[in-house]
């Protein structure tokens, strides 16, 4: 089952490279995404048994993150198929309105193949029970996404890709060092018995050497934290998110960051089992809070709306790190927030793609009256604002509320207060920009008013999911969240 999940997109990627016609390739992309989604659904309904000692296995945490990934990928695939046909995604020389630079897009076959490889590697991240394999998979996601970010072949994309590749590769190299240190911590005095299997490590946590485990956690946190976008290792994130095509930005923000977060959570779980909960938790929470504050400061007065969304991702990842670090019910809140943030942020990035296609600019100041020009996208943009801001009808409210209440309850009052302040600041900054873009006067120049269903449906569904999660969390999801939270050293509310 798991192997099928990993190899299906890989096979499809190979096929995409071989297919010469655009249309069948696009059908293949959506088909592969749909099959992957269906298989993931099957995994949720009847979870495959976790074999002890196996490198691959879908425990509740893995299932949760796999579910998010698969859902987002399906939405992004449907969206991408359309935008690939569109002028901005299509062939030939095009002009960037902001800078006036001319660019040519990468071949569509390469784009599709990389997208599918990306899905495969993310699935592997979610399913690996082995820290070494996890490392390989996370590094592979970096490599699969680099060509995606460089889809629009222009200097700024190239710059973003270079930064992304270098910063993330170096970060992940440090995570490899952390992985080695885990082996040292686990090995006996004669040098044998080192293991990287997460369940085994958790089971034997009492015998691990605390000093080495601490060092390992620091390296893993910095390494995977780079990929997750924790401040101060976040520098690649706004560039990559603003330069990548919108469906890719959606996947980066909604799925990739979560995958890196899962890596940190696994390390945290081992530390928690070894009784180092306070050490690893406070480090994680500290990085999280720092990310929230810094990201909020960058959101205010941000002139580029895709960068603004990217900083919002940094902020939300910070919130999740804070929650996971605090532990207890806050871990549950953090996992729930991972779900909510992913669907909302992916939806917002897709809507941002619509705005970009219509207005041909990423500048906040040059977009106005979107609600009149593009009624559905404009409406979704406003809805997304309230969703990402954590206002009541949306799921983000529930998750943030759960998380912060648990923080207050566990004696992290000041931390939670600072986090609240950062959240408010970010909401104000986002609201100012979003309201001006959605409302305001219609632009004078010619603007494309076309809104086909393929670019509206995916964000609509994603935001609807967030809305639904705000009203009712299915018991199945609740059970998985609680189980995952238990597994990762937290508790259920």
């Amino acid at each position, binding site marked *: 089952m798991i192997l099928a999940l990993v190899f299906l997109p890989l096979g499809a990627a190979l096929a995409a490279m071989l297919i010469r016609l655009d249309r069948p390739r696009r059908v293949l992309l959506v088909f592969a995404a749909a099959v992957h989604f269906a298989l993931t659904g099957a995994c949720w309904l009847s979870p495959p048994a976790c074999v002890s000692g196996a490198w691959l296995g879908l425990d509740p945490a893995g299932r949760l993150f796999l579910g998010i990934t698969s859902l987002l990928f399906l939405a992004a695939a449907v969206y991408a198929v359309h935008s690939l046909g569109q002028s901005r995604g299509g062939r030939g020389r095009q002009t960037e309105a902001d800078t006036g630079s001319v660019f040519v897009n990468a071949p569509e076959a390469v784009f599709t193949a990389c997208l599918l490889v990306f899905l495969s590697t993310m699935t592997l991240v979610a399913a690996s029970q*082995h820290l*070494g*394999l996890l*490392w*390989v998979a996370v*590094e*592979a996601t*970096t*490599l699969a996404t*680099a*060509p995606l970010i*460089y889809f629009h*072949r*222009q*200097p*700024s994309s*190239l*710059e*973003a*890709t*270079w*930064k992304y*590749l*270098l910063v993330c*590769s*170096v970060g992940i*190299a440090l995570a*490899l*060092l952390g992985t*080695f240190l885990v*082996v*040292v911590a*686990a*090995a*006996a*005095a*004669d*040098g*044998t*018995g*080192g*293991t*990287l299997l997460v369940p085994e490590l958790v089971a034997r946590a009492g015998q691990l*050497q605390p*000093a*080495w485990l601490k060092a390992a956690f620091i390296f893993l946190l910095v390494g995977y934290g780079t990929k997750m976008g924790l401040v101060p290792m976040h520098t690649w994130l*706004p*560039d990559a998110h*603003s*330069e990548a095509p919108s469906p890719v930005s959606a996947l980066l923000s909604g799925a990739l960051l979560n995958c890196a977060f899962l890596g940190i959570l696994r390390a945290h779980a081992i530390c928690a089992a070894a009784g180092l909960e306070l050490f690893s938790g406070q480090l994680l929470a500290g990085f999280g809070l720092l990310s929230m504050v810094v990201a909020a400061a*960058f959101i205010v007065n941000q002139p580029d709306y895709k960068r603004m969304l990217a900083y919002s991702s940094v902020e939300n990842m910070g919130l999740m790190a804070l929650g996971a670090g605090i532990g207890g019910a806050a871990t549950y809140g953090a996992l729930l927030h991972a779900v909510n943030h992913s669907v909302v942020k992916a939806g917002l990035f897709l809507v941002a793609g619509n705005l970009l296609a219509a207005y041909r600019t990423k500048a906040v100041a040059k977009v106005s009256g979107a609600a009149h020009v593009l009624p559905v996208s404009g409406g979704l943009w406003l809805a997304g604002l309230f969703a990402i801001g954590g206002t009541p009808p949306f799921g983000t409210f529930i998750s943030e509320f759960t998380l912060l209440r648990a923080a207050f309850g566990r004696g992290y009052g000041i931390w939670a207060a600072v986090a609240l302040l950062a959240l408010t600041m970010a909401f104000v900054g986002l609201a100012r920009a979003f309201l001006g873009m959605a409302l305001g006067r219609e632009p004078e120049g010619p603007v494309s008013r076309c809104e086909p269903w393929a670019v509206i449906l995916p964000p609509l569904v994603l935001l609807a999911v967030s809305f639904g999660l705000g009203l009712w969390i299915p018991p199945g999801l609740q059970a998985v969240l609680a189980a995952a939270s238990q597994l990762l050293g937290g508790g259920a509310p």
Partner: protein
Amino acid sequence: MSGVIEIILIFLILANLILLGASRLRNAIRIVAWQGLVLGLMPLLAHRDGLVWAAILLGAGSAGIKGFVFPALLNRALRETQASREIEPFVGYVLSLLAGVGVLALSVWFGSRLPLPWPPASNLLVPAGMFTVWTGLFLIVTRRKAITQVLGYVVLENGIFTLGMVLVEAMPLLVELGVLLDIFVAVFVMGIIVFNINREFDHIDSDQLAALKEGGP
């Protein structure tokens, strides 16, 4: 056995120091290639049970990729980009070298008081690995050219590989091969990007890639 390992590690350290002082890109590529080649011997020597097919595979793979494929790739990028052959550092060569000696002393000091649960193959293993990791990071941060940054990444990886030799018994081979594959693809992709950077910007100076700064134009 441990004598040979010692000599390899000293070679590793010297290669790092030469890299810190090297001013020609082509020389730097050659030194990194030699470093990778010699490191490929390590798995064979560090293994307690002597020659194991897994260790041979790992060593040969590592030596082949780092000693031949990477240099060929980077040299090709260098040729096609027609980059100037100087490295153009932010921190001067002499200062880099002196900093290197300082860090080397620190890593020897640190390595001597690190309580490893079991004795490594050589006392020099941990300091040499740490120093190599530092050299890689230092090269990435202080050198202007994109190619040098790729080289720094390879050196960083060499350092981690060396440190990994401490636990050669405990690490499953499959993971090591996966790591190797990832590094290979990473450098491959980086090589392509370097080539593209040159095509777009007519230079490979990564410090001029600054359009996306916060508050920039």
